[in-house]
């Protein structure tokens, strides 16, 4: 009996935070529609206005389907030319030759994948660390300001990250970090070749900084959704705090954390401005992370306004279409995972 009362004090109640965009909050259980309400709704002289209102709201809700469908049809229609000309080979070809009208998306797919993977490798451990610190270890006084700061990272516009990356991160990489990596890890072949500062590694690092907030806030959310009884059970067996976190919390939240990581991946795949500014804009496939590259989003941002002929533009739109489809699949998958974990969770305490 008494256990229940002391539980929030002992382990810290889930804390409140402003919703970051793209974050699914743990839904409160919907209040039940009572009999009285049904009765009252069935009567009344304003049934015309009421049903009109209802239909209007329905229309707006359904318009969201409309928007997605419209985006899809526009992209398919406008990329028709390139789809017909190159077919599936478009995605496996290295050529990018606007002069001769020969286009292939492979270098861009490569750049997008590599920069996103680098970003995930850097961001995931850090994000999970932050989430563990904020939910399980942080003193209450610090929790508010710290979570606010990580949320603030999410609010900084992409172009400002890009600006900072161009003038601070890239020189830092070029002068200090890259030479160090070349010296210590040069034998792997991943850090070879001319050192521009710009390139796939720079893009990966700035992407990591940008997707950290979303991964850590979602991870925090699924960790908060783990029932306190799980933590208490592990602690009661004599576990240390880390063992409690590992066995009681992380193990229970792992599917949700995977969902959060995939959602972060979705962000990284479609991120445009910051990547465009530091990736180097060269459609090449190279084994080195220090080499210049190009990503799917950055080639569109860079070349779309100068695409003079229809085939050129249509090839760029086809890259956009591929990006659209991939991000939809990735996002849907991640949402399903996060939803599966937080669905049965108790409402967050205030």
């Amino acid at each position: 009996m008494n256990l229940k009362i002391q539980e929030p004090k002992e382990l810290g109640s889930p804390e409140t935070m402003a919703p970051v965009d793209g974050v699914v909050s743990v839904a409160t259980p919907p209040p039940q529609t009572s009999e009285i309400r049904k009765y009252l709704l069935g009567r009344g002289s304003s049934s015309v206005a009421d049903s009109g209102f209802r239909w209007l709201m329905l229309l707006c809700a359904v318009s969201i389907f409309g928007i997605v469908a419209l985006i899809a049809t526009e992209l398919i229609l406008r990329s028709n030319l390139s789809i017909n000309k190159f077919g599936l080979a478009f995605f496996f070809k290295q050529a990018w030759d606007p002069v001769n009208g020969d286009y292939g998306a492979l270098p861009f797919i490569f750049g997008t994948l590599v920069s996103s993977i680098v970003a995930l490798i850097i961001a995931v451990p850090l994000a999970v660390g932050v989430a563990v610190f904020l939910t399980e270890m942080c003193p209450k006084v610090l929790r508010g300001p710290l979570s606010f700061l990580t949320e603030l990272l999410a609010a900084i516009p992409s172009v400002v990250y890009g600006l900072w990356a161009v003038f601070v991160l890239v020189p830092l990489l070029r002068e200090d970090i890259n030479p160090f990596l070349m010296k210590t890890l040069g034998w792997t072949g991943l850090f070879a070749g001319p050192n521009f500062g710009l390139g796939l590694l720079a893009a990966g690092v700035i992407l990591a900084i940008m997707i950290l907030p979303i991964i850590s806030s979602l991870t925090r959310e699924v960790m908060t959704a783990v029932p306190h009884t799980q933590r208490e059970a592990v602690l009661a067996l004599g576990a240390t705090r880390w063992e409690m976190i590992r066995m009681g919390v992380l193990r229970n939240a792992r599917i949700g954390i995977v969902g959060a990581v995939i959602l972060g991946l979705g962000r990284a795949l479609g991120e445009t401005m910051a990547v465009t500014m530091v990736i180097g804009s060269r459609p090449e496939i190279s084994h080195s992370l220090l080499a210049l590259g190009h990503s799917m989003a950055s080639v569109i941002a860079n070349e779309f306004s100068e695409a003079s002929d229809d085939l050129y533009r249509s090839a760029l739109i086809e890259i956009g279409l591929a990006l659209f489809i991939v991000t939809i699949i990735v996002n849907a998958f991640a949402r399903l995972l996060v939803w599966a974990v937080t669905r049965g969770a108790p409402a967050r305490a205030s």
Partner: protein
Amino acid sequence: MASQYKTSAANRIWRTTANHLASGLAILSTILVIAPLVAIFIYLLYKGASSLNLAFFTQIPKPVGENGGGMANAIVGSGILLIISSLLGVPIGIAAGIFLAEFGRGTRLANMVRFTADVLNGVPSIVMGIAVYSLIVLPQKHFSALAGGVALGIMMIPTITRTTEEMLLMVPNAVREAALGLGVPNWRSVLSITLRTASPGVITGCMLAFARIAGETAPLIFTVLGNQFWSVNLDQPIAALPLQIYVYAISPYDEWHRLAWAGALVLIVLIVVSVSLVRYVTTRGVLKGAS
């Protein structure tokens, strides 16, 4: 597992060490995450504040080679774009949220709408830019402020829908029943009772969406194009603050870099103020524990 936790002294030391190590790593990662944020802000303040002056807010860009000039046209342009996008995004977003919370609760349609909204939220902004380009710019054959506003407006919808729904769900049913019991028509009760009660939270959602699109650049590149001169014509290319920052940042001129930093500072202040305001509102009063 069991053999691993024999109560030998060595084992206890190992477990305590692992515990401290993990704590240390968690603290370290928090510091590593906060560090770039602090670095960005300090650098931004340092670079931006030194190049911010009155001319920045009152003048339009000067041609290359001349010193001075400002981004007055871009600030006004961004304002116009945000107004257009809010006019489009806020009503649709709130209405869709009302449908999810008040009419579609628990239905399959509502679940599908919610899911689609979440997925739409994840669509890259550059893709949104292409779609609006081929929807509005290509048929019209010229770039326009309106096209940019539409692209940004569409991006606002999912965030607003989801927050509105969540906020409405927290309004107790007794409030709705009290209104209906007094003979208030349902539409009136939804608008002036339920939505009104939830309004601080709904406004929060709108501000968050606002803060997000205020810094969007990618969908603007080929919808509004940017403009070096004064223009408030909705049917013509218009300047926008994030777009101007981008163009100046990748230019080779120091004077333009200076302006880019000043612009970034203005943009960040705008966004941080609105996010902090949102946080202030959400952590007190009616909404305590709400979001």
